[in-house]
């Protein structure tokens, strides 16, 4: 993934400008900064959910729905759909295998397959989002404060996912957590 002179402005306020970097396979980038510095916005730009004010994001080759994985705390799930149905929906839309058994076992949600998202705790929702993010074995994985809602086991899961991601491609984490910061090989600080 390549980022060239990326900048985002809301009204007259620039969150960041002229950010350029090239991520190669095996690299893990941490986006750091205070609250309101634009970490989540930066990640959403990389995910293609927002249009930059200036510059551009060059995504990995291929279908971005398969090559990019994204998980964020504020991303909502479909309240009436069950855990299984979320993974099935994601698979059908992306044109890939559901891998529900493998993914739910990995994130520890095997016991909650038939629960609707409305009945999941915040931590369980975070685990489901992680499962959906890695479903296609993406080249680039973007995680926005992945450990924020997770317990110790959950944070260990994030570390494991980060390690697996390194074998496959790159990882970008937006975080204020010093432990998550240590997952990274490189850092960008937004001020």
């Amino acid at each position, binding site marked *: 993934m390549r980022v060239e002179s990326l900048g985002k402005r809301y009204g007259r306020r620039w969150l960041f400008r002229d950010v350029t970097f090239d991520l190669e396979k095996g690299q893990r980038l941490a986006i750091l900064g205070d609250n309101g510095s634009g970490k989540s916005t930066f990640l*959403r730009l990389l*995910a*293609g*959910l*927002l*249009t930059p004010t200036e510059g551009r994001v060059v995504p990995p080759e291929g279908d971005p*729905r398969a090559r*990019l994985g*994204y998980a*964020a705390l*504020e*991303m*909502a*799930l*479909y*309240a*009436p*759909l069950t855990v299984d*149905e979320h993974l*099935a*929906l*994601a698979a*059908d*839309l*992306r*044109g890939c295998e559901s891998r529900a058994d493998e993914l739910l076992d990995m994130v520890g949600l095997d016991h909650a397959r038939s629960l*609707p998202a409305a009945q999941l705790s915040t931590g369980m929702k975070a685990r489901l989002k992680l499962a*959906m993010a890695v479903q296609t074995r993406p080249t680039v994985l973007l995680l926005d404060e992945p450990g924020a809602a997770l317990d110790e086991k959950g944070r260990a899961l994030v570390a494991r996912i980060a390690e697996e991601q390194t074998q496959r491609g790159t990882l970008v984490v937006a975080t204020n957590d010093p432990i998550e910061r240590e997952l990274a090989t490189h850092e960008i600080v937004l001020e």
Partner: protein
Amino acid sequence: MNPQGRWSREVVAVLRKELRTEWRTKTGLMTGGLYGVCLVLTVVFALINRNVNYFYKATGDHPLQDVCASLIWSIVLFASLLSLPRAFLAEEENGTADLLRLMARPHAVFWGKTLFNLFQTWIGGLLLGGLFVAAVGLDVRHPWLFVLCLLAGGAAVAGAVTLCGAIVAQAANRTALAGAIAIPLLWPLLQWGVAGLQSAIGTGLLRDGISAATGMVCYAVVGLVVGPYLYAAVWKS
């Protein structure tokens, strides 16, 4: 899997999601459905012991039948308007739009949601129209035209509301903008819907009814052809 197979898999996935969500939350039923049934009952209470099929022999006027055509179309139209916008606006309001944008292509989302809207308006229109006719005791001279107008009108409303919903979904002041856009979009449907139903009931000329139904079909086709491209243009924030 070939591209066409993949596309239809995506459309069916969105449609299945919409159907499941509606089945489990009953949002459309509780808004449009309840509204429609209450309106029909209101009319029934007003017309108890009256013969709506009465006409003035001297002038040949059928005032109550003409009003019934207008009432049926109003009930069906506004019941649809209450429930349809949820399909697109709900994604932004519930915060699930990002999830959909990450996984889906805009054309597939548009067609999946539009098929759901069509399903909803057709079921709602036929049930409410049929309930009105049965409850009020209205004679319908051309039942085939009655059904055709409800189906064509439903498709036209679904197309117009889908377009409107896609445009305003990301606007800051959605309600005001939706109202402003909806009025010119719905104006021709109001006229065609009433004219078509009047002809179906028998108070208007058959050829006028067929023209009205044709107009609504063409309107639906235009909305459904333009819609995907417009939706793709406003897909990203």
